[in-house]
C-alpha cells in the first residue's frame, strides 16, 4: 500500500512540475534582463521592470483594452444566444430538435481554419470585417457550443418544474426567469460565462483575420514578439494575460460560492 501511495505522489508531483514549469519560466523571463544560453538562471533580475512596462507602454494598454472589450462583448452575445437555446433544448420537444442538437456542436467539429477563412470572406462581403460586431460574432461562434452544453447540463437537472410552479403561483415570466431559473441554474451560468471569457481571450486567428488589425488583443500581440525572438516582451504580455484571466475568474468563483452560502 505504501509503495502505491509513493507512486501516486510521484505522479502528482510530476504533473505539478509539468504544469507549473512553463508558468515559472515565463514569469522569470518577464522580470529578467539577460537570460541567454548557457546560463541556467537570469543574470539580472529586475522586479520593477514589469510594472514600469505596464504603466508606461501604451501598446500593452491598448491591447488590454481591446481584449477586455471583445471578451465582455462576446460573453454578453454568447449568453444572449445560448440561454434561450439551452432552455429550448432542455425544456421542450419540438420538430428538428435532434438537428439543432447536432448544429450546436458543429463549430467544435469543423476545423477552425475552414470556418475562419470562409467567415472572413463573408464578413468582407457584408462590410463587417474590422468591426466590433464582426469580431465578437466570430468569437461567439466558438463559445456557443461550450456555453450551450454547460447551461443545458445544468438546466436538464430540474427541467421546468419550478418555473411551472412559479408561473402557477402568479409570477410574471420575467420574475420567474430572474428569481427561479437563474438562481437554480447558477453553476451552469457561471461555467458558461467563464468558458466564453476564456475562449474569447485566447482567440488568435479569428481576431486577426476578421479584426483587420483593428483589434490587437494580448494573445495577438504575443505572436510577432515570439516569432521575432523578443521573448522578454512576449513574456510580459503573457503575464498580463494570466493576471487578467485568472483574477476575474477567481473573483467570480468566490463571489458565486459566497452567495451560495447565504441562507435564502
Amino acid at each position: 500500500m505504501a509503495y502505491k501511495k509513493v507512486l501516486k505522489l510521484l505522479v502528482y508531483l510530476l504533473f505539478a512540475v509539468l504544469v507549473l514549469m512553463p508558468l515559472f519560466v515565463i514569469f522569470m523571463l518577464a522580470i529578467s534582463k539577460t537570460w541567454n544560453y548557457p546560463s541556467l538562471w537570469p543574470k539580472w533580475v529586475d522586479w520593477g521592470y514589469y510594472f514600469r512596462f505596464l504603466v508606461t507602454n501604451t501598446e500593452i494598454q491598448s491591447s488590454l483594452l481591446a481584449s477586455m472589450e471583445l471578451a465582455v462583448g462576446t460573453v454578453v452575445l454568447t449568453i444572449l444566444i445560448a440561454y434561450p437555446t439551452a432552455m429550448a433544448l432542455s425544456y421542450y420537444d419540438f420538430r428538428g430538435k435532434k438537428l439543432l442538437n447536432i448544429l450546436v456542436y458543429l463549430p467544435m467539429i469543423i476545423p477552425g481554419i475552414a470556418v475562419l477563412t470562409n467567415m472572413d470572406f463573408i464578413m468582407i462581403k457584408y462590410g463587417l470585417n474590422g468591426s466590433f460586431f464582426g469580431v465578437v460574432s466570430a468569437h461567439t461562434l466558438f463559445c456557443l457550443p461550450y456555453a450551450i452544453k454547460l447551461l443545458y447540463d445544468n438546466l436538464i437537472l430540474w427541467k421546468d418544474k419550478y418555473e411551472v410552479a412559479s408561473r402557477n403561483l402568479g409570477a410574471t415570466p420575467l420574475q420567474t426567469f430572474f428569481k427561479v431559473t437563474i438562481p437554480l441554474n447558477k453553476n451552469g451560468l457561471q461555467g458558461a460565462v467563464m468558458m466564453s471569457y476564456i475562449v474569447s481571450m485566447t482567440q488568435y486567428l479569428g481576431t486577426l483575420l476578421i479584426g483587420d488589425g483593428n483589434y490587437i488583443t494580448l494573445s495577438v500581440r504575443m505572436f510577432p514578439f515570439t516569432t521575432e525572438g523578443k521573448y522578454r516582451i512576449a513574456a510580459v504580455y503573457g503575464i498580463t494575460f494570466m493576471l487578467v484571466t485568472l483574477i476575474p475568474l477567481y473573483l467570480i468563483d468566490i463571489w458565486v460560492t459566497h452567495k451560495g452560502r447565504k441562507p435564502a
Partner: protein
Amino acid sequence: MGMEKLSLHYYTDALNDKVFLKIFFRTFVFALFSAGMACFMGTVLAFLFKRNDNPFTKPFFKLAQLPVMLPHIFIVLALIQLLSQTGLVSSLLTRIGIIHSYNSFPLLLNDQWQIGIILTYLWKEVPFVIVSLVLVLRQMDNRYRIVADNLGATKWQAFWNVSLPLLMPAIVNAFIINFSFNFGSYEVPYLLGNQTKEMLPVYIYDLYVQGDYTQLPMIMSLNLILSVFSIIFAGSVLWLSKHLPGGHTGGI
C-alpha cells in the same frame, strides 16, 4: 470575373492534387495521434484525481484547470525557452556534462516529427480531458462499481467493464473536440511546425492570404472537403463508440 458557371472541377482538382492529399493525410495522422495520446493520459490521470479522500486531489484539480485557461502562444513561448537547442534544458545538460555543446541537443521544435506541436497540444489538452472527466466521475454512481466488487469482479474487471463504459461518452466527446482542434488550428503549426513537413491549416492559410481572387473557389472547395471530412469522422467515431463491445452509451 469569369466565375459565372457552376462547376465541380475545383473539387476534382483538389482530390487529384498530390500535394494537398499528402498534407491532408499527414495532418490527419498527426491529429489522430496527438488527440489519442491526450485522451489516454487524461483518462489515466483523471482516475488518479477522482478520489476525494486524498489531500492532494483538490489542489491538483485546480492546477489542472490552469492550462485550459491559457492561450497556446503562452506554452509555445515557454517551450521555446525550455526546449530549443539553446534553451534551458540544453543548458542544464551541457552543465551536467551529458552533451558538449548545444549542437548535440536534439531538435525538438520545428522538427520533422512535429514533437513541439504535440507537446504543446498535450500540455493544453491532457488537463482539458482531466477537467471534463473528473466532473463526470464525481457525479457517477459509485454503486455500480460496488455491485461489481460485490459480485467478485477484480479491480481491473470493475474498471474495464463498469467504470470505463460509463465514462466512454465523455472520453469520446473530448477526443472529437481535441481531434478537430488539432486537425484545423493554425497558430501552433505555424509557430512550431517544420517547413518541409507542412500542416494543412498553414497550407490553407497561406493559400488564402497570398492567393488572388481567382484562387478563392479552390480554397472554398478545400475548406468544404475538410469540413465534410471532419463531420463524417466525428460521426463515425461516435457510431463506433456506441457499437464496439464495452463502449455503450453509458447505460444510464
